């Protein structure tokens, strides 16, 4: 009380009304404006991802590889399955390039031979050589990459659909439904994928379709778990309560409000499931139950190349190299996306 009266007696300065201006002029309102454009979740993540050089290089590489392999029917120099027996086992030969390894010569007991001339194929050019049946390796790699990528993409899409649906229902409906669905998952998760895939491939006709089904049937479990966990987190947020209060139907909330908030984790999970599908396909081809001959996938090409590896190593190294590049790129991109989508979730 004392203090206040003291202050009143001795004002620090004389305040007169003309020293004040009304707030709310145009200039002041400008300060309140959000100058940066408002970004959606995807835009924001994309902005962060763009800063990650490694991820961007991987993305560009993947787009290139995908585009080239999907254009295989247009750009492949030869038919991938045509056997030209007299052109078998030719080394790589690229017109205008005279470096050993790319000029069609081979080293036999210390001297270089032009293998193309020896086989009477001097006007043929096989950029990456031919296999033991005289099929052009480059064309086979192009088609094989396409098959491997199709398997991976479709399997990932199916596993996404099944996993998200299962996880969302389990998490959102909750209660007894969740309980039963979780018990089922718990039993299923002990089943080794490998075993199911192999058994399915023994029963179904071998081919792209069977591999996709087998992969989709086994890979969705981890997706379902992650989606459920995330749904449980999201479901207690205020905006869900608000949506409920406003009378939105359950289905609508799941679809309009929960699903978009799962996007980050789902995309990351899909990104990691693609390389694992590519690997699994290659593995199946390697143990002999993959894509049936004469069609190629990267896995069958590596397996075929492995058989003649000591004498014609390029038949294995090229497909193995492409596959490694694809796998590394997917993993790097997935890592980058995880950091971009959720900086807190680096695990």
């Amino acid at each position, binding site marked *: 009380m004392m203090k206040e009266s003291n202050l009143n007696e001795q004002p620090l300065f004389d305040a007169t009304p003309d020293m004040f201006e009304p707030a709310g002029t145009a200039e002041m309102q400008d300060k309140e404006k959000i100058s940066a454009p408002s970004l959606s979740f995807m835009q924001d993540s994309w902005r962060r991802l763009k800063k990650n050089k490694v991820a961007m290089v991987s993305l560009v590489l993947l787009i290139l590889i995908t585009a080239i392999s999907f254009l295989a029917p247009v750009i492949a120099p030869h038919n991938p399955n045509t056997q030209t027996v007299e052109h078998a086992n030719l080394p790589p030969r690229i017109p205008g390039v005279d470096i050993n390894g790319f000029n069609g010569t081979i080293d036999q007991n210390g001297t270089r031979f032009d293998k193309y001339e020896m086989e009477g194929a001097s006007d043929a050019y096989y950029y990456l050589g031919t296999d033991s049946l005289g099929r052009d390796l480059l064309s086979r790699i192009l088609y094989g990459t396409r098959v491997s990528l199709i398997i991976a993409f479709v399997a990932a899409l199916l596993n996404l659909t099944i996993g998200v649906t299962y996880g969302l229902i389990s998490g959102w409906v909750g209660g007894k439904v969740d309980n039963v669905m979780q*018990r089922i998952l*718990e*039993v*299923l*998760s*002990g*089943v*080794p*994928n*490998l*075993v*199911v895939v*192999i*058994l*399915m491939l*023994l*029963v179904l006709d071998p081919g792209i379709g069977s591999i996709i089904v087998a992969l989709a049937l086994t890979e969705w479990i981890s997706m379902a778990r992650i989606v459920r966990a995330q749904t449980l987190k999201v479901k207690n947020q205020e905006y869900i309560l608000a949506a409920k209060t406003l009378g939105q139907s359950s289905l609508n909330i799941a679809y309009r409000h929960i699903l978009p908030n799962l996007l980050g984790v789902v995309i990351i999970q899909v990104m990691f499931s693609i*390389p694992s599908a590519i*690997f699994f396909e*290659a*593995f199946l081809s*390697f*143990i*002999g*139950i993959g894509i049936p001959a004469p069609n190629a996938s990267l896995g069958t090409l*590596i397996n075929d190349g*492995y058989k003649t*590896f*000591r004498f014609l*190593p390029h038949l*294995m190294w090229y497909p*193995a190299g492409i*596959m*490694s590049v694809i*796998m*590394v790129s*997917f*993993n*790097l991109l997935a*890592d980058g996306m995880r950091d971009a989508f959720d900086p807190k979730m*680096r*695990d």
Partner: protein
Amino acid sequence: MKNYAKFIGKRVFYMLMTLFLIATITFFLMKLLPGTPYSNQDKLSPEQIHIMNEKYGLNKPILVQYGIYLFGLVTGDLGVSFQFNNTPVTELIASRIGPSAQIGIQAVVVGTLVGIVLGIIAAMKQGTWVDSSATFAAIIGRSIPNFVFAVLLQLVFGVWFNVLPIALWTGFASSILPSIALAISPMADSARFTRTEMVDVLSSDYVELARAKGLGKWEVAFKHGLRNVLIPLVTILGPMTVGLMTGSMVVESIFAIPGIGEQFVKSIMTNDYPTIMGVTMLYSLLLVSVILLVDVLYGIIDPRIRVATEGEA
């Protein structure tokens, strides 16, 4: 503690359910498969086939066969192999488990140890070139298929330097290359995992306290940090086992090692169904046991988890 026992009991129950499910799936899938067990059926008279069916119980109703099969599983009888002169599958597996186990264990031990050390170094040198190269190495290890690694190892150590055997099974020397090939992926996984966990742990209060007491940086990392990193590391044992199973099939085939994986691949090629079923059950049992072990271990080594599960139950 009582609730914890209840939790373990529940886990065991699910484990048995899983095994039962797998057994059922394999049995009925195998029944769906085309072909008969008799390799030269044309030469057999109907009477002979009848006698054989009688002997192996193949003329009984399918549900009875299923019951017999399940009973066999419980008592360790997996039937006889179609391919190897009627050898019981159990015997076949038993004779091949040694090399597989040796390579698998060597790979896990070496891979995890190297991975943990790499992960700790990467976390300590966070943000430097050491960190980025360790991370990159881990991604390469995770990305490049193990059969490519196996062939590379064969080429470098077997063909170029000619220092190690690249095929067949003649003791420890021939287990080195396959173990390394198999160790790559556990190494990459544990390195990545250790790094992220370690980064977390290093910024925690107790590490700061230890540093404030005047302990050295590396001493803190290994004495205080490592213990807390190892606990969550137990959880990747399950996925690691799966990786080892897949890996062993490929690696054993490439290095011509008389193990389970190689046998499985051979059986698939020759449609030796009882052996496929037997190995399938063995793999499932192994995986389910590892998952159970992880659950149990996790509760024992980290009391916080036990408390949490008790709260839940």
